[in-house]
């Protein structure tokens, strides 16, 4: 038995890196410390896709990697509008090959941000993002707002490691000396911990943000008695609490990105932060979901100039979420082939979009079988990043951390599979004289 320390979790955007596990006979046998139940489950492992396979007459038939590579490359090289989607639950090294493959194919490349924090990215492109690393929140923040986020369920270590419950340099007393504000439609595990819980009407976030902004800028007089189910009195008290902070930190989740005004909710959340910043230090950070969704946004941006929903048809990047994001392409039935890696549109896309995916050739690269496997035509099992493969990832605050390899795998890494597909695509194009 070997104890491995400083293990990095490859599940959610918290990317906790102080986990201790035991490894025996090339297996993770125990997660001793550091991980939440979700992360622990990831580290301990699940049923795997056992072999590469190609669908023949409706059934997946096992085959060699060589055969699957050849088939995948043929599908992609013949495609007039391929979609390469996913990229969030793998490492940046693989993402780079993905961008190169997309460029070679004249494909659309999109990542899971488009159904997660894509609206946040659009908002940042509108007004920017006054933010900070999570350690700044840990050491300084005395007022913490979770808006449309439920970290107690979705990011179980977030409050303990980084925010409300953590203890830092100027926050030695921990939560005793902090205020927690939760804004949500439902009462949640997180809202039960709050000093202030604003239970707002579903879909009315935008109005509440604007009201708070007007108050923070000194125009409480125009704000009506009630906004989005919240009384003016509560809004005024919340604004006072924000103004009185030494260091305020807002975190927001999919309660805001998925609702009503979507990207404009986030614009407004950021505008509220800027308004609060005229009184005191205030920051805002999206609660990114997958452990490396921030990373594919980074890689895609430094390579193409744009973070997601990028069309490389003409050899240069045309960026436009809402036109080129995966769900849009699929509901419009635009693409004629898809490569899905490290994600599961079968589970997370609207049914209307899945219908088109089920009709076109789909290549899947993933360690685990999932709903997408049910209609994939070529399937590649891959090593699990963070357990069987190392590589770079970006935490929700864009801090880069290197995943560790804990055990050997019989399966190749995502990067290696993608490189082989890319080589094969190039060989086909060479043969065709392109």
């Amino acid at each position, binding site marked *: 038995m070997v104890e491995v320390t400083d293990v990095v979790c490859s*599940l959610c955007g918290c990317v906790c890196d102080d986990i201790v596990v035991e490894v025996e006979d090339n297996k993770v046998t125990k997660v001793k410390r550091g991980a939440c*139940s*979700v992360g622990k*489950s990831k580290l301990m492992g699940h*049923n795997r896709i056992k072999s590469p396979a190609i669908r023949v007459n409706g059934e997946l038939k096992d085959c060699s990697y060589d055969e699957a590579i050849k088939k995948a490359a043929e599908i992609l090289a013949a495609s007039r509008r391929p979609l390469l989607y996913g990229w969030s639950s793998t490492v940046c090294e693989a993402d780079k090959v993905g961008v190169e493959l997309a460029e070679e194919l004249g494909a659309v490349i999109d990542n899971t941000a*488009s*159904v997660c924090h*894509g*609206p946040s990215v*659009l908002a940042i492109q509108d007004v920017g993002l006054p933010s900070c690393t999570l350690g700044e929140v840990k050491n300084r923040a005395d007022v913490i707002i979770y808006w449309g986020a*439920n970290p107690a*369920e*979705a990011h179980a270590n977030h409050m303990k490691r980084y925010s409300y419950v953590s203890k830092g340099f100027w926050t030695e007393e921990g939560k005793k000396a902090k205020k927690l504000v939760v804004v949500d*439609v*439902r*009462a*949640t595990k997180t809202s039960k911990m709050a000093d*202030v*819980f*604003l*239970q707002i*009407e*579903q*879909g009315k976030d935008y109005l509440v943000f604007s009201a708070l902004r007007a108050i923070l800028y000194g125009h409480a007089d125009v704000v009506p008695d*009630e906004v989005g*189910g*919240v*009384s003016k009195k*509560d809004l005024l008290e919340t604004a006072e609490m924000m103004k009185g902070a030494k260091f305020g930190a807002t975190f927001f989740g*999919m309660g805001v*990105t*998925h*609702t*009503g005004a*979507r*990207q404009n909710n986030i614009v407004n959340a950021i505008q509220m932060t800027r308004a609060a910043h005229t009184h005191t230090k205030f920051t805002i950070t999206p609660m990114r979901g997958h452990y490396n969704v921030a990373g594919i946004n980074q890689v895609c941006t430094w390579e193409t100039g744009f973070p997601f929903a990028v069309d490389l048809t003409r050899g240069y990047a045309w960026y436009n*979420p*809402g*036109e080129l*994001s995966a*769900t*849009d392409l699929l509901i419009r039935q635009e693409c004629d082939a898809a490569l899905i890696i490290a994600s*599961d549109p*079968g*589970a*997370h*896309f*609207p*049914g*209307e*979009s*899945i219908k088109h*995916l*089920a009709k076109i050739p789909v290549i899947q690269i993933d*360690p*685990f079988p*999932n*709903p997408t496997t*049910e*209609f994939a035509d070529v399937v590649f099992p891959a090593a699990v990043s963070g357990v069987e493969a190392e590589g770079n990832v970006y935490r929700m605050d864009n801090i880069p951390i290197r995943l560790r390899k804990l055990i050997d795998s019989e399966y190749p890494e995502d990067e290696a599979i993608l490189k082989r597909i890319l080589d094969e695509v190039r060989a086909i194009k060479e043969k065709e004289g392109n």
Partner: protein
Amino acid sequence: MFVCTRYKWIKMGTKVNLISGRTTVQGRNLDSKLSEEYFDEVARCDLNKADLEKLGVAADESVKVNTSYGEVIVKAKEDGGTPEGIAFMPMGPWANAVVSGDTHGAGMPVYKGIDAEIEKTGEKVLHVKELMQTYMG
């Protein structure tokens, strides 16, 4: 401490405002979506006690969730945190069966805030593989 609870969005009868979102157990099974635990956690719809009573549904009985974009059968669950008139489904294939793919030029479907109707049903909840089969052909 103050808590705002004056909740105004209460619809009549079986009409609800449907939202979907993450849960711990759903997250724990992200890499094992074919498992029973995932099925039990995700193929469900949380409603307030009052709404359940209106529907005449007990916990763990099947309900049909209907929107303009589709319908799906899931198990009903009681959740005190969910206000009257709101239905919560964990994110996953069942919730998505009734979500629109239209992003209104934003790239993001509206996963929360969908007008839905809920009714009691005797039909069985489809397993994930069966649910995926409905998208084929």
